């Protein structure tokens, strides 16, 4: 920034502010509330407290308790009443306090939210966003560190997205709220405090498409597929690999359902190797689907099978060993090595 631009009245903001991912979500929700009077936020402790992660901080104060609603403590109730509010014309954004507490609402999500549009032959739209902070690495007790995204991505009628940076957090939450599709929005809770640049004036119409993957780092030797909290891990691995002379491409999937496979295929056809990284247990995780599709589509381009670096097929373990459960830089590099050694 030049001296003069700093002094003068900025005509066109360049890249805007550097804020945490959590704050970016907060700004995005604020914009959504401003942009459409039908948008409401509901959940446990979202009001005065601003949510346990402060993602809704200040919103009830500014928009009133009719638009930012502290609900009774019952997740089925949160999502079930959101369905009714959506039928009434509202656009509810539901906050689930932690990943492990979404299951009381699972029935309403898979049997109602996902199906009402289909059931009603397109007559009833449910523009509902269900926000879920997910993933581990924060030293928490049971139920506070899970990655249940596959349990939603498997369900037709839902769309599932997740963000990995402040910029995406800000735009994607706005896009999700503006979409008429029911969307489960996973927030990488251990990245809430990581900072990044956000253009707060960005126009929704110009945004990168919500359901498109993004090449987070270009590379030539192998493709690392990640999303949410693991994008940072994958990028770190790519930096480390570069030191060993290996040039990894990192793709941030962003949309988990639908998957933007074109971006993935394009990369893997070039690199011939793919490694998928996620925190969720490997068995029937996103890595399985990605591996299956990549293999079918890029069969003759693959130099090695698609490898998976994931959580183990055990309940999320005690905090003191979670670092051994979670994929990290070393495990990603190990998988890349194995791919090259195939």
């Amino acid at each position, binding site marked *: 920034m030049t001296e003069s631009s700093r002094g003068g009245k900025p005509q066109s903001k360049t890249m805007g502010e550097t804020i945490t991912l959590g704050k970016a979500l907060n700004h995005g929700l604020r914009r959504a509330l401003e942009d459409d009077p039908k948008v409401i936020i509901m959940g446990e402790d979202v009001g005065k407290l601003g949510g346990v992660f402060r993602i809704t901080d200040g919103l009830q104060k500014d928009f009133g308790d009719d638009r930012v609603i502290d609900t*009774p403590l019952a997740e089925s*109730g949160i999502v*079930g009443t959101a369905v009714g509010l959506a039928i009434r014309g509202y656009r509810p954004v539901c906050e689930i306090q932690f990943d492990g507490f979404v299951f009381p609402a699972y029935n*309403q999500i898979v049997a*109602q939210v996902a199906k009402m549009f289909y059931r009603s032959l397109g007559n009833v739209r449910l523009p509902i966003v269900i926000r879920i902070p997910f993933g581990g690495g924060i030293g928490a007790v049971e139920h506070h560190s899970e990655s249940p995204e596959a349990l939603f991505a498997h369900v037709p009628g839902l769309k599932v997205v997740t963000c990995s940076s402040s910029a995406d957090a800000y735009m994607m939450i706005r896009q999700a709220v503006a979409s*008429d599709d029911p969307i489960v929005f996973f927030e990488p809770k251990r990245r809430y405090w990581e900072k990044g640049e956000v253009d707060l004036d960005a126009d929704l119409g110009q945004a990168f498409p919500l359901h498109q993957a993004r090449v987070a780092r270009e590379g030539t030797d192998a493709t690392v597929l990640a999303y949410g909290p693991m994008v940072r891990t994958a990028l770190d691995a790519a930096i480390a690999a570069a030191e060993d002379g290996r040039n990894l491409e990192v793709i941030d999937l962003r949309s988990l359902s639908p998957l933007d496979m074109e971006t993935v295929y394009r990369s893997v056809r070039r690199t011939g190797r793919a490694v998928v990284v996620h925190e969720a247990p490997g068995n029937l995780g996103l890595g399985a689907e990605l591996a299956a599709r990549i293999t079918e589509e890029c069969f003759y381009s693959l130099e090695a099978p698609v490898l998976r670096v994931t959580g183990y097929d055990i309940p999320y373990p005690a905090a003191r060993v979670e670092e051994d459960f979670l994929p990290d830089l070393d495990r990603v590099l190990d998988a890349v090595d194995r791919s090259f050694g195939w």
Partner: protein
Amino acid sequence: MANGEREVGADAPAGGFVQLLTPDGERVDSVTTTDGMTYSVDFTDEEYRELYRDLVTVRRLDAEATALQRQGELGIWASLLGQEAAQVGSGRALRKQDMAFPTYREHGVLYTRGIDPIMPFGLFRGVDQGGWDPHEFKFNTYTIVIGSQTLHATGYAMGITMDGKTGTPDGEAVIAYFGDGATSQGDVNEAFVWSGVFNSPIVFFCQNNQYAISEPLERQTRIPLYRRAAGYGFPGIRIDGNDVLASYAVTRAALDQARNGQGPSLIEAYTYRMGAHTSSDDPTRYRIASEVESWKAKDPIARVRAFLTKQQVADETFFAEVDDTAKKLALDLRERVLAMPDPEPVTMFDNVYPHGSPEIDAQRASFERYHATFEGSGH
């Protein structure tokens, strides 16, 4: 709300209920409950006759559906036989602006909303999952997962309050239908919590038809269901569910209270499922014939006919004409059901997402390609 002595009608269960028309067709002028609510109706002769017509019509259509199912034209049918008064009374009590959330058995309420009675047949024939526009008719899709719709109804009612559409006589209100079995589901109880906390304009209308498939009421509760409401801080009342006048009067009053800003209430319509749970069910396995017999004496239609006759509001000519008109409607319905086309298979890919999805598009395309390979091959 404790139901007091004044509410005990003929054949009332212990604890009593609100009854304005006895099984013999005697009118009870009005009923005042222990907490001071007075219920009565003030219908013109014409209105009485139209109520009768509704009852006969929905029963006749239901019988046609049962026949169609037996002939293999429907996959399944959930009959409302015996519950006509509960449904027609409460359905007619709704004002135009009120919204209803049904289960899978509310064909009578659907009829009172002015929806073409063929609508539910798509679902039961297996050609779609329900075809009407819930917004147009203010009657949501049928809901099969027990209890779910009570939360939808509660959310909708919260929206009415947020829209400022309560507190006046022409405000809006919601009615949520569910069965005795549904009262055990967490969702229904959460709906009670929510609507109490938010003082939402909603009437919970429970048709206690004594059974959840094979399970008698005692498997769901050890006290009368209407008393559930007290635990959440809003009124509960039991009505003779086979009395269309009580159903009308009490639902109308509860809806009006709701629209006036007085919050939720629960109505337990004490009735009986005269037929099987659905056409797949065999009730002889779990209930005795004499029980069914005893409920025949409380038929919801016979009592209105007796009343109309005694009061000389209607005569045999009228009754015959009603039967005849209902029959014609039923035959018309039958014809139209038989003519319902099977959907084009490829339409199963429609309406998955409002904004569509490239994955679905790809699957639709591959489906079409695949089926094209069979063209002319007899497939």
